[in-house]
């Protein structure tokens, strides 16, 4: 075996850090999926009738749909009847504030490095923590509400802000958009909601931290972000799950609405359990994320660092409806061992003078498969639309795969679309060069990988970027030797 492969081999043998779970007393839905379960969930959440109807409609449509098979991923099919669709830690009463949240729950987050105690938290990030099917707490609510910013769990928003929910729920990702979005619409349990009023620049990063704890449970959260005219918000999302032998399903929906001159920056560091070295277990991450630049001069920017999940199926997209609106997608997707990722974006240019930029950096190690799938669509009305796409792949070792599937559909002759793609390998030469300067092999790989992903990591908020850098190194640890 060449040195390269040895290095890769070792680097990939590192275990998942967040693989522990906690025995919590839970309130769970019975196993299986049918209309009664959906009614059960809806009742549990004391939802209004219209929302139940909405869920049921989604469910009925879902039943007529088939699981998509076009993605470049292979996995045993999910038995939707074997899953539980709701699992919530038992709390005697609904906590009114963070002080009333069960300390055991807070401890889970502390173990993950997320301190929900506002005094102890770094100023500048408000967190909504979601455990399995429910939000366990949201920080800095009061500070934010002084500015008119609403940041709360989705369930809370359903009760407190029904008009906004009614108006925007499913407006960007229709309930019947695709198989997993329909499933999510039927059974979603909680998630985060955020509304930034007109002209307000959100003074802190808003963040949702998703954690799957329960076994055999699907996690179906929904995030809805509404940025009113000339507002700005930067939103962060982090995810982890325990190590389990069986695959777990995570099918989330994120909707972003940006009114004119509004800007939303959405960053994800996804670190779901990827399965073990033999490819056993891990999260199926089938997620629909979409934003609409509804107003003129609005901007939506997606940044994602994807390191976890056994199978990833995810295409954060932008509908550029407003004139002069801008969509961006920055992505680093790392796959190792038997992980499979099929990820990318869709940029739909509808308005005039719309611009989009795609920077995708794939890193494959072990026996993993990493695909970029991106679509750039320029509609008839979208005069002077511009797109620039850059898709790079980095291979570590000789048993992994990198694939690029760009789709371009242009209906306006004034459009300018550029696509660049490169494939490279971490060379033995690069590692030796670092070694010769006194740098250990693991640090050499981290240095090289971070250099490769720099353009994307630079898009992340500072605190997150450092985290992401460490995570990249950790994910690849053991993959070079």
């Amino acid at each position: 075996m060449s040195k390269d492969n040895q290095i890769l081999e070792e680097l990939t043998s590192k275990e998942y850090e967040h693989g522990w779970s906690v025995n919590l007393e839970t309130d769970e839905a019975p196993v299986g999926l049918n209309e009664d379960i959906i009614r059960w969930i809806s009742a549990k959440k004391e939802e209004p009738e219209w929302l139940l109807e909405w869920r049921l409609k989604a469910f009925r449509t879902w039943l007529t749909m088939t699981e998509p098979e076009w993605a470049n991923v292979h996995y045993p099919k999910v038995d939707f009847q074997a899953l539980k669709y709701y699992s919530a830690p038992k709390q005697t009463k609904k906590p009114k504030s963070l002080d009333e949240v069960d300390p055991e729950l807070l401890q889970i987050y502390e173990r993950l490095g997320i301190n929900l105690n506002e005094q102890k938290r770094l100023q500048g990030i408000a967190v909504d923590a979601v455990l399995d099917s429910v939000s366990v707490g949201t920080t800095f609510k009061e500070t934010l509400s002084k500015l008119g910013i609403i940041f709360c769990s989705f369930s809370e928003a359903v009760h407190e802000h029904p008009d906004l929910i009614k108006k925007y729920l499913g407006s960007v990702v229709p309930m019947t958009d695709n198989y997993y979005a329909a499933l999510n619409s039927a059974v979603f349990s909680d998630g985060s909601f955020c509304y930034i009023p007109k002209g307000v620049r959100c003074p802190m990063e808003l963040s949702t931290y998703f954690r799957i704890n329960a076994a055999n449970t699907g996690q179906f959260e929904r995030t809805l972000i509404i940025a009113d005219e000339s507002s700005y918000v930067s939103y962060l999302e982090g995810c982890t799950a325990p190590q389990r032998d069986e695959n777990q399903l995570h099918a989330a929906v994120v909707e972003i609405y940006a009114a004119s001159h509004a800007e939303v920056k959405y960053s994800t560091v996804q670190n779901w359990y990827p399965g073990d070295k033999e490819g056993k277990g891990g999260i199926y991450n089938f997620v629909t994320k979409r934003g609409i630049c509804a107003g003129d001069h609005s901007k939506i920017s997606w940044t994602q660092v994807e390191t976890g999940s056994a199978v990833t199926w995810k295409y954060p997209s932008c509908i550029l409806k407003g004139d002069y609106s801008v969509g961006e997608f920055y992505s680093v997707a790392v796959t190792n061992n038997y992980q499979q990722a099929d990820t990318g974006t869709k940029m739909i240019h509808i308005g005039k003078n719309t611009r989009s930029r795609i920077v995708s950096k794939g890193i494959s190690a072990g026996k993993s498969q990493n695909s970029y799938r991106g679509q750039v669509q320029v509609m008839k009305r979208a005069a002077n639309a511009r797109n620039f796409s850059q898709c790079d792949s980095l291979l570590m070792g000789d048993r992994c795969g990198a694939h690029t599937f760009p789709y371009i559909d242009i209906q306006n002759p004034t459009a300018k679309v550029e696509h660049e793609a490169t494939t490279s390998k971490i060379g033995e030469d690069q590692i030796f060069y670092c070694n010769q300067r006194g740098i250990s092999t693991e640090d050499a790989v981290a240095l090289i990988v971070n250099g490769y992903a720099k353009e994307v990591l630079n898009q992340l908020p500072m605190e997150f970027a450092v985290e992401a850098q460490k995570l990249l190194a950790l994910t690849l640890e053991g993959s070079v030797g």
Partner: protein
Amino acid sequence: MLSIHNLHASIDGAPILRGINLEVKAGEVHAIMGPNGSGKSTLASVLAGREEYEVTEGEVTFKGKDLLEMAPEDRAREGVFLAFQYPVEIPGVSTTNFLRTAVNQVREYRGLEPLDAVKFLSVMKEKMKLVEIDQKLLSRSLNEGFSGGEKKRNEIFQMAMLEPTLAILDETDSGLDIDALRIVSNGVNKLKSPNNATIVVTHYQRLLDYIVPDFVHVLYKGRIVKSGTKELALELEEKGYDWIKEEADAASV
């Protein structure tokens, strides 16, 4: 400082070095010359610990320690520096960032505190003058899009930052015009001290006009077949390598 005894090494089963003996003391400059394919670069690579080469026989001690037992990064941390013939590009990693990682890992190995950003920068500024290197170049991705001269200057700059006890310059003159050659050589000369040593691997005598060796060794078919002073280099320049080959081939019959 460095003691090489009967060193044999091969690549993919083919022997390249066939019994090298060499003593290098602190304060000395040794030049290794020889025709193409004689094993000069192999010797440099084996000393630095490149894995493709298999050492089949012999010993190398460096400052009293068994060099061949050490991983490449530990050799570097002990003070062995190789200026590469073909410096490697690392996209997205600036020379500054790269060197800061390197310097601090070396310091950690030696039980020293890491340099903070401010201190590191001030050391860097001072060393930059040695090789007349521009700070802009150091903020760019390491070696990416550098000219031949810039790459070699960058190598010597790294050497200045890492302050090795043994510097091995592998064909540092290749691809350099006369001005670059002067700058690079000046840098190397300024770094010379009674406490460190330099091995200059080169095909041509040209470099030795600038970096004056105490000893010159001629390598042929994996052995040092002739050793002398700097005059030997001049003789080689004048007469070429053929007479040495004949002498050596005759002796080995």
